């Protein structure tokens, strides 16, 4: 290569380099995420949302958003509908605004008109649905929430029997109601088993799955101290199970525990099991379960194998020495029988209601993918007549007693 051509080649390389650099920088600066300046103080952060049917318009929903109040003296504002303002006495002031609309998006837009800051729902911590929502309203609200990119899909969802907006307006001791709900289902209580927690994406996923009935924890506001009116606490009263976006069954707390035992979700909790001699208390209870479904002639058999392990906390026969293993084995057998009966009772309730919150239909579909039509359209009937084979094996760890 001659010297002249080498210089020409190097100059072309230099031009290429600048062009590549320019195009790269231009492309990078046009990538979404760039130039998205919006200061934190220009946002109205939504802590929680409540979706109710509109009281006066059956075809509309009532959207209630709970906003964090950043300034010391929250100014009033109102939604297009009835405005509900409230402020907690503690360190987290909040403000509830309500609007009636055909959709959540429209409702949020109406709320925006009454705010001097832009609504930011990317960090919404909980969404509460009223059980009085019609199936169409619930489905459309759920789809809208999951479609919007500005909604936190990891928000906890729950249901209330009456007004969801009332729950978010409860005067709690030191926190906003949305915070209280999020803490309830978050890391505040480590023991699983007392209730079920659901996030928005999980509820949407369960609603879209075949052979599984979606469920939501049911919330109620109760008095912290029964003799006084205030403060109140948000409590989980049980589990409500949906069928076609309509509440088909409810589980109380004891049934919810059985639901969790069957699902294998119980960890690090105490449990009292009645046996013949009295009540045996177990601590550090852990449950592992294995569920499957199989065809049994013209019917379907649902099978559950559960292993429950706990440490003996209190013996029913406290006056006897614990050096004999025979009573322990007997207790384990009696606990097996009790839990099998209780689980069977819970499953029977669900069968009668025609809902399958554990997803036995899903297991059946995995084994028999050719019968997807059956699972899609007739699983409720199939589940209702299914035979239940539940086997519980309780293991009680007794470390003896100090003599």
């Amino acid at each position, binding site marked *: 290569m001659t010297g002249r051509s080498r*210089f020409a080649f*190097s*100059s072309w390389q*230099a031009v290429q380099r600048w062009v590549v650099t320019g195009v790269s920088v231009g492309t*990078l*600066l046009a*990538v979404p*995420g*760039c*130039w*998205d*300046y*919006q*200061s*934190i*103080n220009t*946002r109205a*952060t939504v*802590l929680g949302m409540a979706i109710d049917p509109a009281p006066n318009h059956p075809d509309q929903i009532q959207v209630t958003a709970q906003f*964090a109040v*950043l*300034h010391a003296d929250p100014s009033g504002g109102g939604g297009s509908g009835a405005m509900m303002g409230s402020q907690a006495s503690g360190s*987290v002031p909040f403000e509830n605004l309500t609007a009636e609309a055909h959709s959540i998006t429209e409702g949020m837009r109406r709320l925006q008109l009454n705010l001097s800051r832009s609504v*930011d729902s*990317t*960090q919404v*911590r909980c969404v509460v649905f009223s059980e009085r929502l019609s199936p169409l309203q619930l489905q459309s609200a759920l789809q809208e929430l999951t479609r919007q990119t500005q909604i*936190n899909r990891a928000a906890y969802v729950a249901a209330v029997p009456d007004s969801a907006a009332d729950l978010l307006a409860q005067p709690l001791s030191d926190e906003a109601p949305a915070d209280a709900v999020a803490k309830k289902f978050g890391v505040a209580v480590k023991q699983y088993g007392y209730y079920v927690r659901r996030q928005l994406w999980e509820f949407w996923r369960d609603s879209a799955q075949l052979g599984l009935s979606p469920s939501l924890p049911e919330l109620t506001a109760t008095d912290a101290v029964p003799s006084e009116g205030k403060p109140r606490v948000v409590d989980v009263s049980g589990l409500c199970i949906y069928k076609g976006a309509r509440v088909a069954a409810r589980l109380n707390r004891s049934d919810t525990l059985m639901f969790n035992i069957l699902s294998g979700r119980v960890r690090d909790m105490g449990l009292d099991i009645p046996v013949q001699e009295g009540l045996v208390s177990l601590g550090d209870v852990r449950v592992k379960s294995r569920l499957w479904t199989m065809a049994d002639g013209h019917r379907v058999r649902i099978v559950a194998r559960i292993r429950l392990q706990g440490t003996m906390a209190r013996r029913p026969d406290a006056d006897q020495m614990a050096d004999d293993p025979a009573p322990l084995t007997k207790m384990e057998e009696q606990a097996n029988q009790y839990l099998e009966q209780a689980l069977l009772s819970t499953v029977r309730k669900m069968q009668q209601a025609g809902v399958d919150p554990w997803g036995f239909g899903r297991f059946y579909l995995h084994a028999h993918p050719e019968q997807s039509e059956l699972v899609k359209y007739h699983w409720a009937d199939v589940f209702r007549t299914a035979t239940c084979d539940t086997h519980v094996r309780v293991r009680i760890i007794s470390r003896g007693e100090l003599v």
Partner: protein
Amino acid sequence: MDVFHFRRSGYRNQTADRLKPKTPDYRDAPHITGDLQKTLSYLKDTAGRSSDFVMRYTDIAGRDAALVYYLTVTDQHTIEIILRALQTHRYPRRMPRHRMAEYLSRHVLPNSNIVFVTNLWELRELATGGQVILLVDGLTVAITVGALSVPHRTPDTPLLEASTRGPQLAFVENLEVNIGLMRRSLNSDSLTVRQLVVGYRSRTRVALLYLHDVANPNVVETALKRIEAVHVDKLTGSATLEQRIVDSHWTIFPLSRSTARLDNCVKEVGQGKVLILVDGDPTALLIPGTIIDFFQTMEDDQHNYVEATLIRWLRIFSFFLGAYLPALYVAFTDFTPSLMPQILALQIARSREGVPFPAVVEVLIMQTVIEILREAALRLPKVMGQTIGIVGGLVLGEASVQAGLVSNILIVVIALAALSIFVMPSIDFSAVIRIISVCNILVSALFGLYGIVLLAVLVLYHLASLKSFGVEYIAPLGGQNVRDAVLDGLLRVPLPLLDRRASHLQPQEDTRSADYTNPVQHTMLEKPRRGKRRKR
């Protein structure tokens, strides 16, 4: 006309297109002819313009002679000894002229460092360097005797690089003292000293110290050639030399490690690095410098391996805090608050209520305040420096929050970032972190978190492209020297396991210590004998 002529790479004539100083070339200087008066008149015309230039006349064996020296840089006692020796000696009656210089050096002058010089330009340079010049009529050589005497401070504890354990000795401004300290610590004849003179006016002495059987000869040769190629009128210190001899003049990263601590230099020279000392500057340069050097100190070897490793991780963590925390505050506050935990976001939002500035202005205000305080504390005397720290930390911070200029969470962010920078053992690298921090703040103000990531990629690219005297600057973290990166980089394993030198420096001898085996395992102390009682 070739417009791309300036892009031509390859051989470049080192002297053809350079500016040349207007000092006379030493090659044009005359030599001593033997005529004393002529030589003295030349010296009068050149060096004699200074008021501290002295010519002391005397007789030696019946010949005219003169001692020439600068009064301010020579030791008067040495001059008196020379004069006494010259004037009291019994010279032989007949002494051939051509043997006189040798006779004087062998039998008369009691001094150890005697040099014969013929060139008058060299003679002038030696005189300014503290030598006493003996000129004798009829001799074509001058005898120079070393008599340099300039006051200097004694070695003391380092001012900037404090440590909690180990040697507490730092270099001083005197080159001989510094070389002596190194010789005392590295008591081996393989420690080689190469001295050069840089600066055609300042004639500053520069010394290279290295272990000739350990250091990579290419590094030594490269350093020598680069120092020899430095043509400046004066060399004011090691920093100006460093900026001229490093591989890249535009980078903000220090390509050599500067330290004033003796123990640091001893360790690194033992590793195979080359130490550069400049006369008049207590700060030494260690080459090649890689990025991992700025997260290590000699103090690491003084501690348990767990403690040393944790301290290194703390430095790395502090580096990221100092460089990225203020920028992340801006990015999270102004662009992506949804990436923060909601409670933290609300706390920040509440603290910023009423602040009239955007987050970037708020951060820049406080960064500027911190920089002003830092500079003020550096320049002021110690006692006042502490006062400035208290005033800045407590009064300014509290007052600015009370006045609503900045948020209180920002004070925490800026204070944490400022303190993190001081965790770095190297002052030079601390300055780099501050520059990176400001750049990060600016890009985060424009592009948010995305800009910080882009700049981090750019910095990584730049780091990977740097070299220091042939060694990759990012070594040993670049992936080619995993052993160095793990054993004595990110971790510091127990010293008996560090039996090899760092391979990324490519030393000639990589064995640092033989395999250590404990010669006495489970020392058995003598047991008291049973059945025999001690006599009282």
